[in-house]
């Protein structure tokens, strides 16, 4: 039970996408709006045609433009949850689900539909029309309807975007529970990275119809393969430097940045002397205590001046201009109490440590240099 997708076209919506999703796996497609996430989902379901491509599910060929196979949507065993849910407004919750049970004998449909509604915690609401259900309840009907067909793949198009935060978190939990009992590939489209990180086994980052990187959510976010992926996953500190050398035995790579030489996790793919882009997450930059000046024993000390900051919840989001690289900025996120205790304010001089393990190198992006 696995889904394999390859799509390519130049117009009307450019696509160059390759993705695979195993049985029981949840793959999230993330990217900004207009990146082609929904288009890919619709192409898998057969709701739109593509110029060139191949979609197979469990060995069944749904699309193969090379040999002229293009199955219509009703012949692809997909369960599709639409962003707006797209329930049939004239049918009750029960009949909405029963509408996807055409493979069962007529007499069994209502019983099966009722048990599916029970499974998504909607027992007792069978007779309600979609207009009489809350957003969260409509989403559950849509999920029950998508599962009714005993699909070979479950496709979820931004299924959590139309409900409030509290309902959303409840629905997250329900999806995680539901997944435990599903042995089919599930593809989730979302623009919300946190949602993808929370729910997905792997995620694929998309931009302008191209699949850029696929991997476990943390891996993609902490080790983006390119500056483009780093940008799309919200990386804050995108800087450039030069590789000074490697120490494979110590597991270290030395990186020259401004007047400093930084220690980084070993990344031998970049030859000494090469220009690289690099990033370090704001959370991996540690503030030194100002009342007890650093003796330089910690990793990668960087001295500089604190810039303007804003308080978001319990954290101060600010930046540091390094003395050695006055043209650069290091974004920092500090707990409020830490900032307060250390008297962090605009113009104050401070020293931070960049955690070596968190320094990640990437090829220089032509667009940035």
């Amino acid at each position, binding site marked *: 039970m696995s889904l394999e997708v390859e799509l390519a076209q130049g117009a009307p919506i450019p696509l160059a996408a390759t993705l695979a999703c195993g049985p029981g796996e949840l793959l999230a497609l993330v990217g900004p709006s207009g990146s082609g996430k929904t288009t890919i989902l619709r192409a898998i*379901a*057969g*709701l739109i045609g593509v110029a060139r491509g191949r979609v197979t599910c469990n060995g069944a060929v749904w699309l193969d433009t090379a040999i002229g196979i293009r199955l*219509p*949507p*009703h012949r692809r*065993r*997909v*369960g*599709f949850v*639409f*962003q*707006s849910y*797209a*329930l*049939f*407004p*004239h049918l009750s919750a029960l009949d909405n689900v029963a*509408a*996807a049970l*055409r*493979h069962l004998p007529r007499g069994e449909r209502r019983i099966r539909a009722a048990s599916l509604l029970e499974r998504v915690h909607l027992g007792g609401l069978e007779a309600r029309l979609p*207009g009489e259900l809350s957003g969260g309840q409509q989403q559950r009907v849509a999920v029950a*309807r*998508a599962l*009714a*067909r005993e699909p070979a793949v479950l496709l979820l198009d931004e299924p959590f975007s139309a409900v409030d935060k509290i309902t959303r978190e409840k629905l997250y939990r329900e999806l995680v529970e539901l997944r435990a009992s599903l042995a089919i590939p599930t593809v989730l489209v979302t623009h919300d990275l946190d949602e993808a990180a929370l729910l997905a086994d792997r995620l694929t980052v998309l931009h302008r119809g191209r699949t850029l990187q696929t991997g476990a959510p943390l891996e993609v976010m902490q080790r983006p393969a390119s500056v483009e992926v780093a940008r799309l996953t919200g990386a804050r500190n995108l800087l450039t430097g030069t590789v000074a050398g490697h120490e494979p035995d110590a597991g270290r790579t030395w990186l020259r940045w401004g007047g400093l030489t930084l220690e980084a996790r070993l990344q031998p793919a970049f030859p000494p002397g090469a220009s690289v882009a690099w990033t370090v997450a704001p959370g991996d930059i540690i503030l030194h205590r100002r009342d007890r000046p650093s003796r330089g024993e910690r990793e990668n000390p960087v001295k500089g001046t604190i810039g303007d900051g804003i308080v978001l919840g319990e954290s101060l989001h600010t930046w540091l201009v390094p003395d050695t690289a006055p043209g650069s900025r290091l974004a920092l996120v500090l707990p409020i109490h830490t900032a307060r205790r250390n008297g962090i304010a605009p113009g104050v001089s401070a020293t931070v440590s960049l955690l070596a393990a968190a320094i990640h190198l990437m090829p220089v992006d032509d667009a940035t240099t």
Partner: protein
Amino acid sequence: MDWTALWLSLRLGAVTVLLLLPLGIWAGRVLAYRRFLGRTLVEAAVALPLVLPPTVLGYYLLVGFGVDAPLGRLWQSLAGRQLAFSFEGLVLASVIVNLPFAIQPIQRAFEAIPRAVREAAACCGMPPFAVLRRIELPLAWPGILTAMILSFAHTLGEFGVVLMVGGSIPGETRTVAIAIYDRVQALDEAGAGRMALLLVLISLATIALSFVLSRRMGRRLD
């Protein structure tokens, strides 16, 4: 009271509606969902009877029905009688005149169905015909009903085109509207008045019915 004319008008209305029902659903759906070259032109042509004077339309129909025209000749060879000044000719004229009244409300009704709802039906495993029957038609039903009622009411009231292609043959082409005109010509004001009042009442009842039904449908779908 010309009961023959009333019966003829009702028959004409019923047959017109029966013919327009499948035609209107097909054409309305195609215009709502398909994108093809010349779609705007087709839409304009459908709306043409709304703006053309009945005499212009009637003139072209009369020419087309004549035995010198392909359509008229074909009908003559098939049915053994001429199309102009016959009930069948009247039906055909009536269908054409009523195209905008039938197609436009149905087209709007199909357009109002969200695309995602139709796609969801396909993703539920429904082949296109099942999507039409189970999802589209029930949702478009108020528009289809409105279209049929409007066409029926409009057929009862049509005068100019009927006069042009049908004349006034009792039992064959003399509708109530024509009969009223004949009564007035014959200075029978009382007879004309009775029939006019009846036509007003029937039309009023038909249109009121359509309002009631579409309101009830609308409530059900909210």
